[in-house]
């Protein structure tokens, strides 16, 4: 349930307290694995902490935190988020200033603009995505146990998958001038 609060631009309640993500439910196809999800629409502004137990599509503005650790979070092309986002999978198509924590993965689509740090065992960055910040994939042994992707997104000219099991290893031969 939404907690009572002040509404901005006629949207959802906006407070400094936790706000469960139980807004408008939609079936969203073709967007980063989101099946049935709550949607924060383009006209909605939220200031505070968003928590919940279902997938979330953000097309509006959020300032605060978004915590749905067991679920997928998508910042849509119209979404503008100034918050840290925790999710099972976090996909960004819009703008985020803040840290992204993905239990499984973080994906930055071509239209994404992200300034912050990414922490996830698997990070996918599409060509054209703007990113400035740090990428943490875990230290030492945990880095060895990065999950191997089971499905490669199609229709991408170029994509980056940090688990990339098939990269050629560097040639250790000596160097010479060219």
């Amino acid at each position, binding site marked *: 349930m939404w907690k009572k609060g002040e509404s901005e631009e006629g949207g959802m309640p906006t407070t400094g307290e936790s706000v469960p993500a139980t807004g408008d439910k939609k079936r969203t196809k073709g967007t980063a694995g989101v099946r049935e999800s709550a949607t924060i629409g383009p006209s909605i502004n939220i200031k505070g902490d968003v928590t919940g137990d279902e997938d979330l599509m953000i097309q509006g503005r959020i300032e605060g935190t978004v915590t749905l650790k067991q679920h997928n979070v998508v910042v849509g092309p119209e979404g503008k988020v100034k918050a840290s986002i925790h999710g099972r999978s976090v996909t960004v198509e819009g703008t985020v200033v803040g840290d992204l924590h993905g239990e499984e993965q973080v994906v930055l689509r071509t239209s994404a603009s992200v300034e912050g740090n990414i922490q996830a065992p698997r990070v996918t960055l599409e060509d054209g995505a703007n990113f400035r*910040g*740090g*990428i*943490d994939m875990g230290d*030492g042994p945990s*880095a060895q146990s990065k999950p191997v992707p089971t499905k490669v997104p199609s229709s991408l000219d170029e994509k980056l998958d*940090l688990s990339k099991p098939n*990269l050629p290893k560097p*040639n250790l031969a000596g*160097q010479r001038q060219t």
Partner: protein
Amino acid sequence: MIRFKGRENVPADTGDDPESLSDDPVEHGSPGIKKIFAALGGETAARILDLGPAVPSNIRTLSEFASHIRVADAAGDLCAPIADDDDWSPMSRAAGLLPVEVGDFDLVLAWDILNYLRKDVSDALVDRFRQRSRSGARIFTLIHEGPTMPAEPQTFEIRGNDRLAYRSSTTHQVPSPRLPPAEVERRLEGFRIEASFVLRHGIREYVAIRV
């Protein structure tokens, strides 16, 4: 007159004919990258600072060796015009690129940015590199040795384990500082030039190691 942040040289004309810009980057051999990869061989938890923009294939390749990659995309900030209310300074910017909380780095990919920086900015950056690296850490940089160079820092894409693709955002050229090896060594104080490679297209690649 427009003042630029830490730039040594600025383009006389920032206008560009989009038609004259090619989408295809120019690919060159890179013995410096090859040497870096050889040095990182077997490493899986290196901490890498990339001063360039986020290039997917670079991050993919570097993540073979890294537990942490910091993408600073420094060129835009270092080379942008200064606003009147801008409190930008070489030291503050260097500190911003290498914040304390991210720990020490094992590799800094400076690409061609040093060609574009005033000496005080370059010194501030290298000083920060020294503070935030341990013995054995490396810097990779490319220095233009020809009379001119692109008016803006280029984007470099690692291809394979010994090639770089150069992508320019402008066709305009500016005079190159043509830093000689001795000056590069001076600017990289605290680091020793481990290897340098003169390339046919007027670039010298440097791999310097923290002593």
